[in-house]
């Protein structure tokens, strides 16, 4: 008999515009010592299932149908006080953000001890001893010392270990982990996943991991359940699901994950998704507005963009005396250049300084040292506003977060038209509108999007609006700062294809920044690897991936999820390459 049995679960949300069905007839089962992955894109309903199992579904959601059995006993119809006894004692839960999961005013010890005293029959001293043991088990050094500290004294990865200790402290039979590693750095992610797998197998605890990340699935799960829009699409052993899935959605989802092993011409699309936009009309660059009248002036010989010894120092704590000031060198002596028409990638973990470099080149930050040379002109020493504006037209940027890169109070028309109006690139208002419509067509949104507001669009669509805005000044150089990191895998493929197409058609020079190595491999010609503000290695993409020189580059490549298990040759044929 399965340890946890979810049968035909149905969850509804009452809202102003009718009833929303978040989960529709999902059935899952979990055995002791088994790790089940629940994967799906945003809106699939996976977190909702986790909340419902533990009985923490928030109003206006409600369990409208189905049954949940734990070790043969039905738990979804228990009284509230009985449910409370199940929580923590028999089912443990781990949430995504370790920063906000812990009470900032209580020591780690008191939070562990109070949980144990509620569920287990222990004395205070025994509970304290167990707390120290638990911290040791989750891999925290000097547990006797650390147990008396406060949450803010732990780093992100350490805090998540504390959260895991809290989930395990009463020896539950099941753990539900809701995106446990999404908020953590790549290297820490690997450690936490290892820890989880080890603990599960040792204690024979059943674990459900809810995630959107295929890499996590490939890494530690035994079985996988795939969700799409609240319905269970496919369920089975991980190797089968990743290697030879049955359902068309799963097939196209797997194939859309950027491949780390070879470079394809285009990103395969997840064709199962109903609202994939009509394919982008190919532009006739000769007659299109985007190809016209680009007044860049003479092209100087040599690279288009040159970054020389650039540095950025942030003052963390200003103080009266210089020696008391605390500073952070976010970027240290970085040197590289980008040739005309090339796509240059910058890869590194968070805090490596890659985004700062982007902002230094674009002029949003002023470097503390070094210079940025664009088409032969030193931008760092340029004081004249007029000339600076001329360069601003040539350099544009696409940002990471589609939800904060558009002014929520402006219509799309005004957002895309702003640069046109400012630089007076059109002769009159009517021409401006037609240019905007054109741009919206080019990015695949359609001219009718112009009169609507950002909140009416999804993440991927908003990113298209950002691209349209960036193209409005007909730039020569486009900086893409993690443009798809915040998007689902299926949308990611669309946006990256769009960027690839535009780059080819318009001959754009691009700086592409990402922490995702497979994406870099597909997009870029040359790559630079950064860590802690330093540029460690620059090489051609294929050279870097096949024979990395620097030790850190090798480390990063090793961390890439080994998705070789996903046999994709048979899927190549299916992947449409529109």
């Amino acid at each position, binding site marked *: 008999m399965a340890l946890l049995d979810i049968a035909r679960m149905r969850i509804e949300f009452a809202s102003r515009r009718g009833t929303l069905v978040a989960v529709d007839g999902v059935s899952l089962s979990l055995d002791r010592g088994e790790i089940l992955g629940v994967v799906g894109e945003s809106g699939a309903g996976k977190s909702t299932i986790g909340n419902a199992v533990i009985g923490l579904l928030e109003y206006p959601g409600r369990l409208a149908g189905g049954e949940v059995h734990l070790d043969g006993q039905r738990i979804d119809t228990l009284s509230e006080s009985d449910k409370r006894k199940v929580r923590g004692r028999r089912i443990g839960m781990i949430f995504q953000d370790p920063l906000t999961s812990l009470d900032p005013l209580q020591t780690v010890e008191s939070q562990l001890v109070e949980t144990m005293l509620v569920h287990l029959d222990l004395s205070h001293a025994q509970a304290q001893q167990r707390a120290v043991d638990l911290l040791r088990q989750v891999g925290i050094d000097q547990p006797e010392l650390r147990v008396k500290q406060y949450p803010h004294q732990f780093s992100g990865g350490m805090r998540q270990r504390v959260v895991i200790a809290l989930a395990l402290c009463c020896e539950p039979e099941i753990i539900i982990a809701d995106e446990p590693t999404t908020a953590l750095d790549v290297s820490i992610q690997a450690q936490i996943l290892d820890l989880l797998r080890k603990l599960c197998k040792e204690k024979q605890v059943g674990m459900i991991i809810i995630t959107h990340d295929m890499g996590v699935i490939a890494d530690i799960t035994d079985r996988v359940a795939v969700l799409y829009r609240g319905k269970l699409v496919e369920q089975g052993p991980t190797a089968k699901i990743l290697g030879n899935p049955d359902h068309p959605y799963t097939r196209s989802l797997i194939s859309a994950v950027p491949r780390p092993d070879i470079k394809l011409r285009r990103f395969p699309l997840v064709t199962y998704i109903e609202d994939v936009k009509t394919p982008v009309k190919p532009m006739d660059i000769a007659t299109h507005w985007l190809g016209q009248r680009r007044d860049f002036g003479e092209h100087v010989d040599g690279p288009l963009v040159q970054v020389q010894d650039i540095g950025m120092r942030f003052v963390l704590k200003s103080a009266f005396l210089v020696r008391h000031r605390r500073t952070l060198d976010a970027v240290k002596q970085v040197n590289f250049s980008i040739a005309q028409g090339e796509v240059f990638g910058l890869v590194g973990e968070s805090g490596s300084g890659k985004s700062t470099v982007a902002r230094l080149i674009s002029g*949003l930050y002023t470097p503390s040292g070094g210079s940025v040379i664009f088409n032969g002109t030193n931008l760092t020493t340029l004081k004249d506003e007029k000339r600076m504006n001329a360069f601003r037209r040539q350099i544009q*940027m696409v*940002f990471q977060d589609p939800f*904060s890169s558009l*002014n929520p109070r*402006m219509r799309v028309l005004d*957002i895309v038209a*702003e640069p046109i109006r400012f630089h007076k690139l059109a002769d009159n208002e009517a021409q401006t509108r037609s240019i905007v419509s054109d741009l919206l067509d080019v990015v695949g949104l359609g001219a009718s999007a112009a009169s609507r507001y950002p909140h009416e669009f999804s993440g991927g669509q908003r990113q298209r609006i*950002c691209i349209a*805005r960036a193209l409005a000044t007909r730039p020569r150089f486009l900086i893409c700062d993690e443009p798809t990191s915040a998007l689902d895998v299926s949308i990611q493929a669309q946006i990256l294809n769009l960027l690839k197409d535009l780059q080819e058609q318009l001959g754009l020079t691009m700086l592409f920044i990402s922490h995702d190595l497979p994406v870099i491999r597909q997009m870029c010609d040359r790559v630079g690897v950064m860590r802690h503000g330093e540029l460690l290695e620059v090489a051609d993409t294929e050279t870097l991936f096949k024979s990395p020189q620097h030790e850190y580059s090798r480390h990063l490549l090793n961390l890439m999820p080994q998705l070789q298990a996903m046999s994709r040759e048979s899927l190549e044929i299916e992947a449409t390459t529109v």
Partner: protein
Amino acid sequence: MIARLAPLFARAADSDLWYSFKRTPSAVISAVITLVIVVGALCAPFIAPHNPFDLASLNIMDANTPPAWNPEGTTDFLLGTDDQGRDILSAILYGSRVSLFVGFASVLFSMVLGVSLGLISGYVGGRVDSIIMRIADVQLSFPAILIALLIDGVARGLLPRDMHDQLALYVLIFAIGISGWVQYARTVRGSTMVERNKEYVQAAKLIGIGPLTILRRHILPNVMGPVLVIATIHLAIAIITEATLSFLGVGVPPTAPSLGTLIRIGNSYLFSGMWWISIFPGIALVALVLSVNLLGDWLRDALNPKLR
């Protein structure tokens, strides 16, 4: 013009705010009450049965008449008269005018001053921010009412008598306004600091747009939400502050009595049993402030994204 406004109205009608308003009975009732008082005050010259400030029309024989339902009252003076023969109902209508005028004007002044300083402080940062926040901190060391009293007192000392009477209303507005800007500034500063790091502001900078335009076009519309909530609460406080100052005798000049002044006048007659001179203006004042507070409460809950 209408064509441009029409989509705005359509959007407003469909908005969550209007939906929430329709479903909250307290909000609707308070809006109605507020509207009644405001309209009554605005139309005072047209609908008041008497003009309490026309000295010629006053008859000392009418003095101290109780309200109409009292056996000694008359329907001529529905709510009775005061010691000078002035009709209480008319006095309330005219008095509300003054109270509302001072209230709205002070809030407007506070809002403009506070929002501007908050925007500048939050956007520019650095020394300018430090200075403005220091001043704000120092000012917060004092209760608003004390500041208002002080400014009033100083003005009284600085200006000659007759000029003071003429300007008293504006001095009052200034005093109440100055005592209230800090709340707006702090909130706007916080929101501005959040917004200025958002990517749409950076995108605007990348285009080359100057800071003033960025503040006006991008940041201001996105920080105004909480400001409206503060403004409604502040309106209630401003009206109360004005009433308090007038009650203490240091608010509006005697030529333009507000509800507070009326209560003050009636205060001396409480013990002699002529309660209506104070109580009716008191009721009007409370009704107004209560409605404004209820609206403020509803607005705050409705605009709070986390409660939806």
